[in-house]
């Protein structure tokens, strides 16, 4: 069965989505990821969607769900590499992924994760006014 690989890098889990997501694949990923977070006691999850060209409302909701679940399991989630077209689509669908942290690329996402895990940034992920 088709699966999306989850790589462990130190205290973080790295998920790169490089195939077209279909609903079953997303559900499998959700199962696998929560399992792995618990098993590896990961502090953060980084999801790279830079090769994802198509999203629908289901995919948008799945990303939000994964982030919420990880949060409950005490792991931060950062979604990185979203394409402009995908971002516009999600906004037009009314899904602005409120609870999900985002970064432009894997590098920035990693440093954001590290910062957040060390608790340098305030609770809602925004810098002080």
């Amino acid at each position: 069965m088709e699966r999306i690989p989850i790589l462990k890098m130190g205290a973080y889990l790295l998920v790169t989505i490089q195939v077209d997501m279909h609903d079953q694949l997303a559900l499998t990923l959700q199962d696998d990821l929560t399992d792995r977070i618990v098993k590896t006691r990961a502090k953060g999850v980084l999801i790279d969607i830079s090769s994802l060209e198509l999203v629908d409302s289901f995919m948008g909701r799945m990303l939000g769900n994964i982030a919420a679940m990880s949060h409950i399991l005490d792991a931060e989630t950062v979604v990185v590499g979203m394409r402009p077209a995908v971002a516009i689509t999600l906004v037009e669908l009314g899904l602005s992924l409120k609870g999900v942290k985002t970064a432009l690329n894997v590098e920035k996402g990693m440093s954001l994760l590290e910062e957040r895990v060390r608790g340098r940034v305030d609770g809602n992920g925004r810098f002080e006014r």
Partner: protein
Amino acid sequence: MTEGSATAPTRISEILRQNEQTLLTEWLQHQLSAKAFRSGRIKESELREQSLEFLSAFIRALQSGKTFDSDSSAWSEVRDVLGHLSRSRATQGFTSGETATFVFSLKQPVFARLRQELSRDPAALAEETWAISTLIDQLGLYTVDLYQKGREEVISRQQQELMELSTPVVKLWEGVLALPLIGTLDSSRTQVVMENLLEQIVSTGASLAIIDITGVPTVDTLVAQHLLKTVAAARLMGADCIISGIRPQIAQTIVHLGVELGNVITKASLADAFAIALERSGMTVTRLAPRA
């Protein structure tokens, strides 16, 4: 007109050809006394040239014996003259009515000629008058069509220019973009602005974008919604947005309308927003030497 009446235009054309000079003089007099000419938008010499050009092309086309339609080759010269004329009139600020009058005012001198030449044959006179009248009407309407098309082209070109002109994304600092918005935000502009900003975020790797709305005249719920959409899209790409340049009136309107800006950072001026941006990227600005 059918094949049977194909000889009729030839007869008219013969009459018109013989009287071309008189026709031109009378027609010019007629046009020169019209209000459109008196407004001074067109010179007499230019009008004379246009009239002469049109009249000779018109008579040549009539001699071919073909009826007017928009794609017959016999009338291509007339169409070119009218096309050129309506375009230049559109830019000179003539109304569509005044432009059409150029063609319609030919009727009176032509009818006068026909009456003179065919006074002994009332049946022929009526028939010829009807034929030429229909023809001139067609030409007039054709001119109006062209005029309108010219105006529409001007409008769509201006719209396009406005669209390109008003959505620049500028790089203020390493990782800091600014988007100075000028003019009202509607859906199509928001789309362009959003796409431009997101493309720039990708290509410059910026993590902060400042949207400056100093040049946006009014902010209503729709504009606010468009702004928030842009902010949300940029956030999905991993860039934070600051909205700056909020005038006192706009701040009042936003609150009165009950628009919820959420946790978007807002600043009164671009300078304040830039200061935050520098602070966030760990930069400070210091004076090197004390002020003299």
